[in-house]
Structure formats: C-alpha cells, structure tokens
C-alpha cells in the first residue's frame, strides 16, 4: 500500500502540531509568566551582590537553574492542586485538569525539573545557590500548597516565603554566602506578597469560595481584605527602605523606593476607600510592576 504525498504531508503536520501542543502544555506546567517576575528579582540580586555586572555565563546558568527550580515547584503544584484547580475559573483550563497531562506525569516532570535545577545551580555556581532553589521549591509545595493553602487564612503570608527565595539564589550564586542584604531582599519580596496576592484574591474571591480554599476575602470578606492590603503595603514600604537604613544602598534607590511605594500605598488606599473591583485590578497589576521596578532600581543603584 502506498500513501499519496498530500496525505503524508498532512499527517506530518498533524504530528508536529501534536508535539507542539504537548510541548506547550509542559511549558504551561511551569507557569512561565509567574517565573519571569521571579527571575527579575534573581537577576537584580546578582547585580547587587556583584556591585556591577556579573559574568555572563553565570547569569545565564543561574537564570536557567532558577527557572527550573520555580518551574519544578509549579509543575508539582499542578499535581497537588488538581482538585482545587478544577473548581476555579482561573485554573480549570490547566493541562492536568483537562486531562492532557496525567497527574503522575506532572509530578514526575516537576521532580525532574527540581533535580535538574539543583544540578545546574550547583555545578555552574555553588551548592548554596542550589540549596536555596530547592528550599523555595520545598516551601512552595510542602508548606504552601499541601499545608497552609487549605488550612489557614494566613496561607499566602507564610507561603509567600517561597517566592522570596529567588533573590537568595541570585545572591548566593554570585557571593557564595547570604549576607544581611540578601535577607533584606528576601524580606522585601516576602512582605510584598500579601498585598499583591490579596489584591488578586479580591478579584477571584468566588473561585476560592467554590474551591473551599480559605483565602482572606472569601472567609472574612472584601472590606477586611482591603484594609489588610493597605496595612501590609505600608509595612512593605518600610521594609523596602531597609537597604538604605543598613547603609547598603544610596539616595537614588531611596527616592525610587519612596516613590514606587508611595504609588502602591495610594492605590491600596483607594482600594480600601472605594472598594471597587477596578481598584483591586489596578492594585494587583501595579504590584507586579512595583516589584520589578524596585529591584531594577536597587540593581542600578548598586552598579
């Protein structure tokens, strides 16, 4: 039996499209959009630790290792949260929920990425950076996803520590240790997480209620959450100027931190006063920009 040329071409195209779709699903498991912000904090921490421009290869391998660590954590999260994800509009199209990737494969993929991250970071920079990458993964999966997310309204406060590890990875990769400044960077991301995440939670409160996840707005309402967004934003501004208080950053960073933080407080205040969905959206989107710009300002100040 022979196959005519157009049929063979169509079959080949379908195979390529199929492979492409599978590849895209596995990339989706890593949540690349979330990781891009985490990598900004890693990269900035590298510039700050170096007090200049670090070696290009070190940057490249640290970024790859950082991506693998965070991607591994996210892929495992697709496995652990598959029951919750199915009940939420924001996540019900995820590959595991839709059955395009089996839960076990997502778990295996996540573990493989985690191991790969440790090897990449350990061999390209040092094992402290590798340990920080793995610590972030373990906190995200073990403490946040499996434990606190389903049991307490403080889930994202403590779980926020997971997202604060990327600057430690970057710092350790360059300096080989973790100084006070590195821990201040950790603290900035840690205290940024509650107002950032609660602003998002206000937007998808019903999703969390449906999934029975005790997020602050779905348990105690919007007004309580709006007040907490404001309070934690004010506290975060105080933490963001600690590099200057410690004598580790200069006036340019101080001005940037005050202006960026002031805008954040302005939005949080409006969210608390107006209580609108629009302001929750504005506050959430600004929080993303805020963290990126704050770390860029720190890196520029240090360079």
């Amino acid at each position, binding site marked *: 039996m022979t196959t005519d040329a157009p049929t063979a071409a169509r079959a080949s195209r379908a195979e390529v499209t199929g492979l492409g779709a599978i590849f895209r699903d596995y990339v989706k498991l890593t949540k690349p959009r979330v990781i891009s912000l985490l990598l900004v904090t890693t990269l900035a921490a590298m510039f700050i630790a170096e007090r200049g421009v670090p070696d290009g290869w070190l940057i490249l391998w640290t970024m790859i290792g950082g991506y693998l660590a965070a991607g591994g954590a996210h892929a495992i999260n697709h496995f652990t949260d598959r029951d919750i994800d199915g009940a939420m509009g924001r996540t019900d199209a995820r590959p595991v929920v839709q059955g395009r990737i089996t839960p076990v494969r997502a778990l295996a993929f996540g573990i493989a990425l985690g191991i790969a991250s440790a090897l990449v970071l350990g061999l390209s920079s040092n094992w402290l950076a590798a340990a920080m990458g793995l610590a972030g993964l373990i906190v995200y999966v073990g403490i946040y996803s499996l434990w606190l997310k389903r049991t307490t309204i403080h889930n994202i406060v403590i779980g926020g520590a997971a997202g604060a590890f990327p600057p430690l990875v970057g710092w350790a990769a360059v300096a080989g240790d973790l100084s006070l400044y590195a821990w201040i960077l950790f603290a900035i991301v840690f205290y940024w997480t509650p107002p950032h995440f609660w602003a998002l939670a206000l937007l998808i409160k019903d999703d969390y209620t449906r999934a029975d996840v005790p997020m602050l707005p779905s348990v105690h309402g919007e007004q309580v959450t709006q007040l907490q967004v404001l309070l934690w934003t004010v506290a975060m501004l*105080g933490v963001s100027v600690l590099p200057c208080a410690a004598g580790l950053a200069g006036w340019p960073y101080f001005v940037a931190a005050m202006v960026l933080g002031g805008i954040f407080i302005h939005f949080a205040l409006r969210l608390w006063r107006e209580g609108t969905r629009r302001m929750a959206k504005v506050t959430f989107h600004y929080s993303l920009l805020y963290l990126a710009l704050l770390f860029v300002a720190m890196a520029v100040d240090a360079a």
Partner: protein
Amino acid sequence: MESLTSSPLRMIALLVAAITVIPTAFAILHTMARLTTPTATRRERLLDQVWLVIPLAVMILMLTLVARA
C-alpha cells in the same frame, strides 16, 4: 559602611522604616488576631496566631538588626 549617626541617609531611612513598620505591625496584629479560619480546629486556631505573629516579629527583628548593623 558609615555609622548610623554620621549618615543622614541611614538615619532617615531607618526613621521611615520605624514609622511605617512598628505602628503597622501592631495594627495588623490588632485587626487580624480576631480573624480565624472557620473550619479550624483548636490546634489550627493556635497555629493561626503563630502564623500571624511570626512575620510581624521578624519584621521588627530586621529593623533592629539593620539599626545595629
């Protein structure tokens, strides 16, 4: 590194941090201590208080460490 007393930037930044962090930490403690997770057991309610206090205590501790640096 310049000492705290000889650096206006360090002093101003520390003041800003203290003014924002300390009262806010107490405000967070005051407003959130009453909030619990409805389905929580007694042990989980106790843990709720621990989860609330730890980040606030660490924030004050960091402020102290930075002031002494």
